[in-house]
């Protein structure tokens, strides 16, 4: 922890010199919060399953002086998903890649790009509270750039927006990404984030995403992680959903080293809805921890949560999902499910669904299962001539399919189906560019 305090103190001037006031203004408070909080130990409830201090202990370089990274993402990550045409943007390490923006195909008023000072200054950092989370505090004290995505009221963005996060470095690198998504009243947008690593070195990323879903707006966010086992990802997402609005957020963790996704959703006005999905395929020494909090703050809100893990090899998975129904949140409708397949005696899964209800007129359920592949089904398939390995594969795929099935974007659904198949066949062990696009 001290290395980050020293780094901040010694490099403060450089950080400030290379960043806009919107970032600099928040550093001091974040720094004080980080010093006070420190990295959470495993005794802190939300961090029970991941050793944060250990992940942050190695020495990583930071690109504080914002040197240009030699990469042409458009060449390196040529995108040709069949039938999925997206407006494609890149973030290299933690900087928005400005050089070659796609031809303007966005509706009028929609903005995707680097955050500037001005209009959204007050929203930035308003959901991601530095005083309650050390990773958010650390990210805020070091952030120098942010991706801003803005959809004005009543605008419907037809073409999905795809953001490819590329990690690119010759030496071990820490990147602190920041995303601000503002979708105003009755607007609609679908976003796809893909995480890749272009180099085989150690990467540590922190990512803080804030999502404002305005009245009656419809937002879908898909995050796909296909990095290397040398990548450590700590991603905190905060969402606020207004009256009658809907957010779908799905994470697909296909390859990676250590992943911790923390997703906090506030259903803040009547009739707000959220669907959280997660699909995790882990093997070797992967460690994947999804931690969610859904707060029902108003009446008539609905939440659905489904996380499925296939844990193989010596991998370790963790899921903790807390649903908090406040006193005034009557007619809450909430369902939470976590189902897990643990495929080897060495694989581990920790699961903790939590339901906390202070209202008296609600419909809530939560549950989790941990199990192995069904031997009877395996034998049945073998009797029909399907080899044991192929039968296991079909059963794992079928298990993951339930989450993939929830994707409304059909070409993406087909693509993920294919990627998950490749992943189970062991053909997706390494990141060689955007698999979503190029295979």
């Amino acid at each position: 922890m001290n290395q980050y305090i020293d780094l901040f103190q010694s490099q403060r001037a450089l950080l400030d010199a290379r960043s806009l006031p919107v970032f600099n203004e928040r550093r001091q408070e974040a720094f004080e919060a980080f010093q006070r909080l420190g990295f959470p130990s495993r005794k802190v409830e939300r961090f029970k399953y991941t050793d944060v201090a250990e992940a942050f202990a190695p020495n990583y370089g930071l690109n504080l002086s914002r040197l240009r990274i030699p990469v042409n993402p458009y060449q390196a990550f040529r995108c040709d998903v069949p039938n999925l045409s997206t407006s494609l943007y890149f973030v290299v390490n933690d900087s928005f890649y400005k050089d070659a923006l796609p031809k303007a195909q966005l509706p009028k008023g929609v903005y995707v790009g680097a955050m500037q000072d001005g209009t959204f200054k007050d929203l930035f950092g308003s959901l991601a509270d530095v005083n309650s989370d050390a990773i958010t505090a650390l990210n805020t004290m070091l952030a120098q750039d942010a991706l801003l995505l803005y959809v004005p009221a009543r605008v419907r963005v037809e073409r999905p927006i795809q953001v490819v996060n590329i990690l690119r470095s010759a030496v071990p690198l820490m990147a602190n990404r920041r995303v601000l998504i503002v979708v105003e009243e009755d607007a609609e947008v679908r976003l796809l984030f893909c995480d890749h690593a272009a180099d085989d070195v150690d990467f540590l990323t922190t990512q803080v995403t804030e999502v404002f879903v305005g009245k009656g707006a419809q937002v879908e966010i898909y995050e796909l992680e296909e990095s290397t086992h040398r990548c450590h990802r700590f991603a905190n997402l905060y969402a606020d959903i207004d009256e009658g609005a809907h957010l779908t957020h799905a994470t697909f963790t296909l390859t990676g080293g250590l992943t911790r996704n923390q997703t906090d959703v506030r259903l803040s006005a009547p009739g707000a809805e959220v669907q959280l999905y997660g699909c995790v395929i882990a093997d070797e020494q992967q460690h994947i921890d999804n931690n969610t909090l859904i707060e029902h703050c108003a009446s008539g809100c609905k939440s659905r949560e489904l996380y499925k893990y296939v844990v193989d090899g010596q991998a370790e998975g963790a899921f903790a999902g807390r649903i908090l129904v406040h006193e005034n949140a009557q007619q809450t409708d909430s369902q939470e499910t976590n189902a897990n397949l643990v495929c080897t005696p060495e694989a581990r899964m920790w699961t903790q669904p939590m339901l906390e209800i202070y209202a008296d007129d609600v419909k809530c359920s939560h549950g989790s299962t941990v199990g192995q592949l069904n031997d009877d089904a395996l034998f049945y398939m073998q009797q029909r001539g399907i080899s044991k390995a192929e039968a296991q594969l079909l059963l794992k795929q079928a298990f993951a399919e339930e989450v993939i099935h929830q994707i409304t974007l059909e070409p993406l659904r087909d693509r993920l189906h294919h990627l998950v198949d490749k992943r189970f066949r062991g053909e997706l062990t390494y990141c060689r560019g955007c698999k979503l696009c190029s295979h």
Partner: protein
Amino acid sequence: MLEIKNLHATVGGKEILKGIDLTVKSGEIHALMGQNGAGKSTLSNVLVGHPAYTVTDGSITFNGKDLLAMSPDERSHEGLFLSFQQPVEIPGVSMTNFMRAALNAKRKYLGLEPLDASTFLKLMRERRKVVELDSKLANRSVNEGFSGGERKRNEIFQMAMLEPSMCILDETDSGLDVDALRIVAEGFNKLRKPETAAIVITHYQRLLDYLKPDVVHVLMDGRIVRSGGPELAMEIEQKGFDWIRNSD
């Protein structure tokens, strides 16, 4: 085609089969009858290589090859098919994908190219009509939400797809009403080739009325205690099994 000699087998350390000798020739139908616990299902499970069963003595030759040396999927490729007493549900795996994987695995084993999608779907359509299996069922997950009768029809449908040379029908009549039994039995008769052999495990004469066995065996306490023609099944229907036990 199938030759079982002095077969002994255990499950959970308990000896169930205590010396079975049975020879089935191409095109023959053999009925296997016997009281609960006599070892009928154990025999069918041993034949298809269920991992819970251990063969402690004896041999099984299938088309001149050592069946016991083969994995369950190899046995299937060689032409052995079991219609399960209780077909299992496989949520998330569609009938179409399941059958395609099975059929193409067999074709690969035989050195044939996989079937193209349209030929495969046409074959599916053709075969399922014979057992009156609804197209909706074919699009669902394997056996998921199928009634008892639909599951049994689905077994016969799969048999028709894989065209085995030896079928074991393990209490295919259990849980079926009279009409469903007729559809399954007639479907079996229509779909099997003349050279297909079968071992039919049943408690009742009714299924045998349709399938017309060449030989009837009575299994008792892990051994075949009596073999005869179709009239043996009739006699059992009238007198029960104790008559055989008492006459020994």
